């Protein structure tokens, strides 16, 4: 198939960006979206032009590196990561807009690549269990009800791609933050740090410049791993509980 691509080009964080138009031909419907961009880049290199920069790594939908807004949707029209999107979701002759994640807390590095280090800092604020190596008790010492283990897993599936932030009209990181809090707070291993975790992570989230949540639900719609919107409600409950219990905010 033949496609027209309108791609966000921006030399670096300080430069002005703009959309540039490219034509690609001979695209197979079995190609992944990123393989289609590989094809464009091979042509650009041979023409002596700067290829389009985009983040990608595992191309299996699990590392969370890929991050494109395609025709206005984070990760494009299917509910999956950009790397698992295939060209069979498009038609011959389509015009496709390709942009980076747009959020104040995710500054553009180059073209379609953004800086998501704010997510790392949110985890550093409390998204862990303090369990130094060697200090662990026998694994079966504390049984965990299957329902709780499944709930934890469902939230632990977050790949930290940032689609939730990109999709949110407020640029909020509530879904990402709540996923980690819910994963750890439901488990007995996470209980001792339950209050400090939610208070510290939420405070860090605010400090990073993410917006507030108005429960539009765009985040959960865009999430390639299906983290549910109620995850945010659970976090709010945890936060309220923690503020009451600790007197902190």
């Amino acid at each position, binding site marked *: 198939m033949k496609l027209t691509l309108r791609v966000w080009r921006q030399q670096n964080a300080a430069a002005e960006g703009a959309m540039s138009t490219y034509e690609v031909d001979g695209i*197979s419907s079995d*190609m*992944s979206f*990123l*393989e289609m961009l*590989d*094809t464009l880049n*091979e042509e650009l*290199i041979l023409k*002596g*032009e*700067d*290829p389009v*920069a985009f983040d*990608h*790594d*595992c*191309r*299996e*939908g*699990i*590392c*969370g*590196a890929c991050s494109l807004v395609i025709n206005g949707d984070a990760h494009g029209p*299917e509910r999956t990561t950009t790397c*698992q999107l*295939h060209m*069979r979701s498009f038609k011959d002759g389509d015009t496709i807009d390709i942009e980076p994640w747009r959020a104040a807390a995710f500054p553009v*590095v180059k073209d379609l690549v953004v800086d*998501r*280090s704010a997510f*790392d800092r949110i*985890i*550093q604020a409390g*998204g*862990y*269990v303090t*369990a*130094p*190596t060697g*200090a*662990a*008790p026998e*694994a*079966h010492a*504390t*049984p*965990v*009800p*299957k329902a709780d*283990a499944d709930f934890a*897993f469902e939230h*632990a*599936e977050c*790949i*930290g791609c940032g689609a939730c932030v990109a999709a949110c009209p407020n640029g909020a990181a509530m879904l990402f933050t709540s996923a980690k809090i819910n994963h*750890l707070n439901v*488990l007995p*291993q*996470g209980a001792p740090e339950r209050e400090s975790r939610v208070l510290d992570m939420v405070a860090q989230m605010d400090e990073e410049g993410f917006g507030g949540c108005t429960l539009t639900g765009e985040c959960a719609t865009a999430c390639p791993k299906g983290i549910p919107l109620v995850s945010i409600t659970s976090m709010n409950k945890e936060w309220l509980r923690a503020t009451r219990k600790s007197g902190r905010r």
Partner: protein
Amino acid sequence: MTASAEYSDYATGAPVVDTKAPQGPINERWDTRRFEAKLVNPANRRKHTVIVVGTGLAGGSAGATLAEQGYHVVQFCYQDSPRRAHSIAAQGGINAAKNYRNDGDSIHRLFYDTVKGGDFRARESNVHRLAQISVEIIDQCVAQGVPFAREYGGLLDTRSFGGVQVSRTFYARGQTGQQLLLGAYQALSRQIAAGTIEMHPRTEMLDLIVVDGRARGIVARDLITGRIDTYFADAVVLASGGYGNVFYLSTNAMNSNATAIWRAHRRGAYFANPCFTQIHPTCIPRTGDHQSKLTLMSESLRNDGRIWVPKAKGDDRPPNQIPEDERDYYLERIYPSFGNLVPRDIASRAAKNVCDEGRGVGPGGQGVYLDFADAIRRMGRAKVEEKYGNLFDMYERITAENPYEVPMRIYPAVHYTMGGLWVDYDLQTTIPGLFAIGEANFSDHGANRLGASALMQGLADGYFVLPSTINDYLARNPHHDEVTAEHPVVQELLAETEDRLHTLLAIDGDRTPDSFHRELGELMWEFCGMARTDAGLRKALERIPQIREEFWRRIKVPGTGEEFNQSLEKANRIVDYLELAELMCLDALHRAESCGGHFREESQTPDGEAARQDDKFSYAAAWEFTGTGEAPTLHKEDLVFEYVHPTQRSYA
């Protein structure tokens, strides 16, 4: 860059000996070593800097643990976040000899299975230690909040994996690697927040600094600004993963690369068993020339899926129209006791054989069916969905076929490299102060890795082995002399690195980095893949220097070095693949036996099975670099088997 007279030349040097493994009963060796190793006073640890390259299971767990112990850790990853290292993509599970199933498992059995699975080309001492530590890993990960699959009673669930007859694989649906990696990443994050780890994401190691024979730092490039900098330490730990991307198409992440280990090899670290690569039997077949990578379907699928091809050649009916008696469930037929759960190398080779016979399915006949119809009939679709749902979804997204209704198509693909930097029992390379952990080293998997053993080894090395053994080195080598960027050795290294990148940018030829990578990969897959011959390997050894010569003449890298430049990153990694590939072929050529994942056509039994040759090749081949295109020197480490006696593997 002159080639030697014969591409297959090499010299044989003195044997290499592991001087760190203690003698005595095997189950006491690790305790003995830990007791004999010198310790560093906790108050002195913060004065020692340790560089860790990579943040996967091995690097992430090592960085976190060293920092917890009080060392000053400076850590690097090329990804934008340490959470994205490729360990995250491991699906199936992690082995541990917990014997929670009361099915006859034990540390000794895990040790035995791993030595046998590795086709008797791994070191007994190392493997036994791995089996011992396996039980602690599960405890550690559970304490971190890793959400392993559980039974209704709240206890941990396990499943079986290829090559074993017990159920010792712990898992978190099909995302075990992700959950274990996030556990390590979170432990790492805790230390970053505490200020004990200085983390450098989007920074790639380009060379190793060796001063007075000791590893003292690295040269690394900031991938955003392009700035090349030097970093110094008392010891350097490489946890940079494997080199499967030399084949271009593999299940590795696109940016996984061999640069860190290859540069260390060029600086004096021996590279062991480079030809030992694992071809994984259950990957999604390729669809065309545009293919950029291959996707693995977890081996756990072989627990319930049945592998078959049509009995007749060229049978192109849709699979559901082929009656039962016209199907060949070839693994169940040839290996009745292990059936679909034979080790990976055997399953891969059998798939290749039936496809070579013309009985392959799908485009180009490069595929076999993995069928869940019986499993769905037996346990119901809901149960299959619970066990494998995410894998089925992934398969459907990639192929647009529904595996609940149509059998999956699978074909082998490069997945893991057992070879790597040679290390002793302490995981130290032949350069003092340089350690290699996880897939970057060669030590535990011999010629074939069993399923769910990579996660076990990465975490064993990072959480438990290295943090004990590195003490001994640091205690014995307090570096009072400071190395700085002004040191002539460092200046020379920096100049060499900058020069290499400038050259790549200046050639301005007419071929893209990918075009060279693809060409090299196809050559390697053909001649150094699942089945190898003397003639084929010689052909590859003749061709690789030609590709290398063409690369340095025709490569085109746009842009500059002082910016975010993914083409430059790629081209620079290919420089190293073009050298490593040659060593892999040479190693494969010299090892004229079939062994593990490596089938040598000249070495087979009368009925076509792999014939290992213990009288000639019961050693690890550790190669010393002598120059690009120059004949390397082979140092043999003889393997001694005191506990598991080498036999021809039988899974029949």
